[in-house]
């Protein structure tokens, strides 16, 4: 029998080449894509518990006096991310079949399949070279995926690519530094050797960890690398954005859990409060990320950009949870990772459905779609309720766990940031709801239809998933605890309904909460049915002081309530944003490089200076060799 692990990475790869040949048959291609992700989900499902599955290949490249081996191994942590990523991908794939019709086909299936191949590789890599290789594959293929053969997306993707390349460079440097310590590329061995290094050379150890951390931060868009999602998410193919947001933002988290957490947990590092210094830095970065993400999301008018920032904020929560180094915190963070996958796929898929039907991304040009696309609206509504962390749905329990963990470690400022971000989330979540689905329907969208069936099915499944996880958190918590056991924590098997907490007597039975909320909802329904009905007006029916907007040198849009919704807030935070905008530095740096590049190019076109340069070279040799 062919090795399961090998099949898992080979099938996407082979399918990728297969689909290249028949790229024009988009129906077939995307169905194949669905089949592959379905296969992966099924295989992964059967692999739960079989932690001794491995696959390895000898490369014949000698390093550290032994032959280099690339290996994959099943492990709880990798399985956890890989399985949920595959399930999400499968749902997105179903959506993609419908989405990539004659008009919208982005012809990206082969690259996406390579991305999935890299995805499996990253999560099951057992040595750093495999990890790095797959990481690079992921970076490169996602560049092509985001750019997808269009000019404007290519510009955004360039920004993403440059950050990715910075990340891979530091990762490679880090890997080789650490591998030199442990004399092998094995991940677990390198963790041990870094823990030992902390005892002897603290600064060096921090430097090595920093090299890894930069990479992970970049990929997960943790501060100070929070800028790329808004550009990349906005321009990527609409059915790919959910994948970017749900699966790809977790690579960095996976890296942190895999490598940095065990070291911070076990190394001999001076304590700072109840946790240690590096962990505290992690917490603060997480806090800044979530606050910044929230603020930026509030100001955004493009709905894909808005949810890009929202993803950034959620990554911030997860990082905060991890930084506590406590069981509850890590549980919460892992739980929230999966919740975020589910929630964001709900939100982005519903937005993709909207864009599929309307072709519009700017929120103030939309409105009232709830009447035309009720299912999409429902999915979106449940998505944001869940994202806001309101109890009967899944987002609540994980956020609750993270806040608990932070409180128990006395990280008060971080808690405040978390609560600020959570509250701020209402502001932007509601705004999209109000401007896209509620309000008045513009005339040109009068005849829009509900999303097609193949889109509706995955959206419905996701809706049900949100509810199911909300009621029975054990679906996620059981594997989470398996991960924790695999990491060496002492935890019990999780129950289906109850979430344990950091403080005594505060365990939470979410199922009971669900019943209570259902009762509340029933009462609300009664109120809704018997209260007064709403009045319908047109979208631009606004107060303009008796004059046409054009007389004022402006457009009716200016008076649309969802245009510049949070303008005052924006003005308040603007100076701060200018200071910390990382992309501006990058752009300035890029400009400088371009200018030097042009200068050098001119140097090379000149014929007169050629001999002079030759002499300068000789002079360098003389000065370097003789005088110094």
């Amino acid at each position, binding site marked *: 029998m062919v090795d399961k692990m090998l099949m898992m990475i080979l099938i996407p790869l082979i399918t990728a080449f297969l689909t290249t040949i028949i790229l024009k048959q988009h129906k077939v291609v995307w169905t194949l894509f669905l089949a592959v992700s379905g296969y992966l989900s099924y295989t992964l499902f059967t692999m739960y518990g079989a932690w001794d599955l491995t696959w390895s290949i000898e490369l014949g490249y000698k390093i550290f006096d032994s032959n280099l081996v690339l290996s994959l191994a099943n492990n709880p942590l990798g399985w956890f991310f890989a399985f949920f990523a595959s399930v999400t991908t499968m749902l997105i794939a179903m959506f993609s079949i419908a989405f990539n019709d004659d008009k919208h086909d982005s012809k990206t299936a082969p690259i996406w399949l390579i991305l999935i191949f890299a995805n499996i590789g990253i999560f099951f890599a057992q040595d750093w070279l495999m990890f790095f290789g797959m990481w690079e594959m992921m970076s490169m293929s996602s560049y092509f995926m985001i750019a997808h053969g269009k000019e404007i997306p290519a510009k955004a993707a360039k920004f993403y690519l440059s950050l990715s390349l910075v990340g891979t460079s530091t990762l490679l440097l880090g890997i080789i530094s650490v591998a030199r310590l442990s004399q092998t590329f094995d991940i677990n061995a390198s963790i041990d050797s870094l823990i030992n290094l902390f005892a002897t050379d603290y600064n060096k150890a921090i430097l090595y960890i920093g090299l890894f951390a930069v990479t992970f931060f970049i990929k997960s868009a943790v501060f100070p690398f929070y800028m790329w999602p808004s550009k990349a998410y906005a321009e990527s193919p609409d059915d790919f954005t959910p994948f970017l947001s749900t699966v790809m933002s977790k690579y960095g988290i996976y890296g942190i859990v895999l490598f940095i957490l065990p070291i911070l947990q076990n190394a001999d590092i001076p304590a700072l409060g109840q946790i240690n210094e590096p962990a505290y830095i992690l917490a603060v970065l997480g806090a800044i990320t979530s606050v910044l993400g929230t603020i930026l999301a509030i100001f955004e008018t493009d709905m894909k950009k808005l949810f890009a920032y929202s993803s950034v904020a959620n990554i911030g929560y997860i990082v905060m949870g991890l930084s506590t180094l406590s069981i509850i915190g890590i549980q919460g963070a892992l739980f929230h990772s999966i919740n975020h996958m589910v929630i964001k796929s709900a939100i982005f898929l519903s937005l993709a459905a909207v864009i599929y039907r309307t072709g519009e991304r700017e929120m103030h040009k939309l409105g009232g779609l709830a009447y035309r696309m009720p299912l999409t609206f429902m999915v979106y509504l449940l998505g944001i309720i869940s994202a806001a962390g309101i109890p009967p749905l899944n987002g609540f329990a994980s956020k609750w766990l993270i806040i608990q963990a932070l409180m128990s470690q006395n990280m008060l400022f971080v808690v405040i940031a978390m609560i600020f971000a959570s509250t701020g989330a209402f502001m932007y979540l509601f705004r999209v709801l109000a401007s896209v689905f509620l309000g008045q329907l513009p005339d040109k969208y009068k005849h829009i239809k509900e999303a097609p069936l193949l889109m509706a099915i995955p959206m419905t499944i996701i809706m049900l998933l949100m509810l199911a996880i909300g009621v029975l958190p054990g679906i996620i918590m059981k594997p989470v605890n398996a991960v924790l056991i695999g990491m060496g924590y002492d935890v019990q098997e999780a129950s289906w309904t109850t979430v344990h907490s950091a403080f005594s007597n505060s365990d939470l039975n979410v199922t009971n909460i669900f019943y209570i909320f259902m009762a509340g909802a029933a009462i609300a329904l009664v109120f809704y049915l018997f209260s007064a009905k709403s009045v319908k007006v047109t979208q631009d029916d606004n107060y303009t002081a008796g004059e046409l907007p054009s007389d004022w040198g402006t457009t009716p849009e200016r008076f649309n309530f969802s245009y510049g919704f949070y303008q005052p807030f924006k003005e308040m935070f603007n100076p701060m944003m200018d200071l910390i905008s990382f992309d501006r530095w990058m752009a300035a740096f890029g400009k400088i490089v371009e200018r030097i590049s042009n200068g050098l190019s001119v140097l090379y076109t000149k014929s007169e200076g050629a001999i*002079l340069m030759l*002499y*300068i070279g*000789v*002079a360098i040799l*003389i*000065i370097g060799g*003789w005088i110094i």
Partner: protein
Amino acid sequence: MKNDKTLLMNILAIVFLALLAYFIYAVATSSDVGINLMDDNVVENRVADRYLNKNVLDENSQYEWGGKAEDSAANIVTAVLADYRLFDTSLEVIVLFVTVMGFGLVLPDERRKIKESTQLLFNWLPILMTFMLLVGGYMFINGHLSPGGGFPAGAIISTAILVGILAGKQTVSHHTLKIVEAVAGISIFSLATLGFILKGSFFINFLEGGNIGDVFSAGLIPILYTLVAFKVSAELSGVYLEFYKGGEEHDHA
């Protein structure tokens, strides 16, 4: 602006050359242990010693004037050039071949006509040419005995062709020159290959040597020099002819 740039170039050139000169001075006056640049030339310590004593193959062998030796060229420079380091010399031929061909390639297509010249030159032409050819011929035949050899001989022979052109007469056609060039070139390398076939080594002087000082000595050297002379003269004459019409039509792409 322009003058400033020139001045700058001059200053930079002087700075660089001063640095280089100072470096060479330091090298020359260095007092470290080891062989220095400025040590006296001692031929005994060099490979040249064995060339002069003609005992490369057998360390203890000696030779006499009029006797035989491993290389029987009386002119030891020629012995080095055309026997010990024959490979270099045959590559030199290729250098000339490729540069002259490149010259013909890049030269613009406009050509001059060969003009009638003064009666004086025209009438003296046969005598001049004969004289030049004789000198050239003497040089390549005697290359292994006295200063000279294939290259200068070829250059002198080609001047005979040049004089012909100046006198208004094209003595050889471009096509002939090409044939001479190719035949001579192929012959040189065929002789090298023949050495491989006969003695198992390329560029070997496989002919019986003869006695030092005789005209018919030094084995292959006179033959090779003859070929080189023909080839060089053909190539250099080709350069002169390139400027004039009447040469073979070029198949420029």
